[in-house]
């Protein structure tokens, strides 16, 4: 584990135990995030990205189960901790922002009351301090503290998401884990939320794990990017480098999947086919049947992780492609 890593995931594997056998949703994932860093995790529905996030935050419920691996946070392995020890860390040292703020917030409690609940549950501070801190975090995300008295339905979608982020910052955690916090927002609100997250990060110095299916969102903000497919990380490296020259064919496909306002109008094809059925044990590369570049050997050999051009890529033809791309 590197010196300044706040989060270090080693060989993490998660199974869903079903009647017809175990489904491996996260398969031997290794990740590292340095203090104050921004790690984007992108993938399609069913790629295992949300399961990975839940596994990191120790929020998995049966039938999902961590089969093996370690999640080191500040030097402690979260996997081995009990519920009461985890409770001590949650909110205070790491917090989670969920996808749908409408569902994550209690509709019949005011924002202030919900913040008070969180504070009382996880810390021992006075009512006055709680009020002060609640106003402070709301102001940080650009919401007027008068809204402490507001109920979730009185806020717009963008404000609700920002309020969720404010709550996650109540205790100045070192790590904030975000599960598609912007996916219910429109483009303008998305952008202003991303700017806000980045700005708060610079000011407060927390690290972010940001899970999304929309690769274009993390392009401008992330330090590190992990691309997930079929439960495995297929490409991992510095965000800008991956965007300017994707080495895994799946990453390249994702980058080609959304229309660009800059480009001339031409027909895009996206990625044909659908993600693999994880119930089946696939011998070769999981992306082979959708890959425009697949050869015979791809369906036989499970590609090992290869270090190339400052990143990790799981593709047996990567060296060939890297040299072709120049």
């Amino acid at each position, binding site marked *: 584990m590197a010196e300044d890593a706040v989060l270090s995931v080693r060989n993490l594997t998660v199974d869903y135990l079903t009647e017809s056998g175990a489904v491996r949703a996260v398969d031997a994932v290794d990740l590292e995030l340095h203090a104050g860093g921004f790690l984007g995790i992108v993938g399609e529905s069913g790629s295992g990205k949300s399961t990975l996030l839940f596994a990191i935050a120790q929020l998995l419920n049966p039938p999902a189960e961590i089969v093996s691996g370690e999640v080191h946070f500040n030097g402690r392995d979260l996997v081995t901790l009990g519920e009461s020890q985890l409770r001590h860390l949650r909110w205070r040292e790491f917090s989670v922002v969920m996808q749908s703020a409408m569902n994550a917030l209690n509709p019949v409690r005011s924002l202030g009351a919900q913040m008070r609940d969180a504070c009382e549950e996880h810390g021992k501070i006075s009512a006055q301090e709680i009020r002060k801190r609640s106003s402070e975090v709301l102001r940080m995300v650009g919401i007027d503290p008068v809204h402490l008295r507001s109920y979730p339905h009185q806020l717009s979608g963008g404000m609700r998401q920002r309020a969720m982020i404010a709550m996650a910052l109540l205790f100045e955690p070192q790590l904030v884990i975000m599960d598609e916090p912007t996916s219910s927002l*429109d483009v303008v609100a998305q952008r202003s939320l991303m700017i806000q997250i980045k700005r708060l990060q610079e000011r407060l110095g927390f690290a972010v794990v940001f899970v999304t299916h929309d690769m274009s969102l993390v392009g401008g903000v992330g330090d590190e990017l992990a691309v997930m497919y079929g439960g495995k990380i297929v490409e991992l490296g510095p965000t800008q480098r991956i965007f300017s020259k994707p080495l895994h064919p799946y990453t390249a496909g994702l980058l080609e999947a959304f229309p660009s306002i800059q480009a001339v109008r031409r027909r895009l094809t996206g990625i044909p086919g659908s993600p693999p059925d994880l119930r089946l044990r696939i011998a070769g590369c999981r992306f082979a049947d959708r890959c425009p570049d697949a050869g015979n050997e791809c369906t036989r050999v499970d590609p090992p992780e290869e270090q190339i051009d400052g990143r990790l890529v799981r593709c047996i033809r990567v060296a060939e492609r890297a040299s072709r791309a120049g």
Partner: protein
Amino acid sequence: MPADEDLLRAESVTKHFGVGPPWSRRRLHAVDDVSLSIGAGRIVALVGESGSGKSTVVRLFAMLARPTAGEIYFEGRPLSKVRRRPAQLAYRRKVRIVFQDPFSVSNPAYRISHSLLRTARLHRPDVRPANRRAEIERVLDEVGLSPASEIIDRFPFELSGGQRQRVGFAEALLSRPRLILADEPVSMLDVSIRIGLLNLMADLRDREGVSVLYVTHDIASAWYLADTVAVMYAGKLVEYGPAERVLRAPRHPYTQLLLSAVPDPRVVLTLTEEDVGEPPRVIDPDEGCRFRWRCPYAQDRCAEATPALGPIEVGHHVACFVAPEMAPAPSSVPTEAL
């Protein structure tokens, strides 16, 4: 524009809702004075943020609500005259909706054939009962769901989000419509499968001559798909015209803001830009441009009178006092390919 060229034409359409308690006189102006037309075999993108009134426009065009003022013409005939059930049914046959959320639109207890058969029974008297299944399979095939003979007997939970949304288009297509009102049809789907549905809409236009009103907040997808773009803000149309003009040389400051918000993954986000505004809820508004609080070019006159939508070039309309005096957008968008 001669009326017979337009499939659907809205003239000064307005929709107000009462807010507050029943005795309240306060009115929410959801749609104010919107005029636009949808040509046969064309795709019109209606673009705006949450709360801009675009879904209310869909409800009005779908005849799920009646306008407070103004008139909508379909095939040259006013919708206010469509009152009796046979006429309403005929309209609903020709104008179909595809909803945003493919996960809540279908009844989980029934196979997808259930609602498709009902649509066929209601809207396709020309198809004999024995042939309905074959007709449904033909339509499923057309929207890219194969093998249709298997898909037709699936339950909704056995389909992915993208497949369910294709079922939505199949159901719309089954009645052989002239116009599909697609209300944010891809925004709930993964980015990687959105493009397939955008292509489907383009194919329906090209192969079947179906017109589409594509409602979206994603201006990049509007650029990809639409012939005509209409931009809404706080219940008003602020810019309207051919996609090449509105999105390549935007004249309204709001359109320029929307374009600048499109994420460009190749550029690192700069933290200096600040826009945390959102469209106001327009309750009993005073005169004045509704965008002036967020507008970098707002002047005194913008608060004194409401700018009307007017031509700035042939076919390109803008509702802004300042725009005609400014050079065409200092657009960050290059006209060349990447």
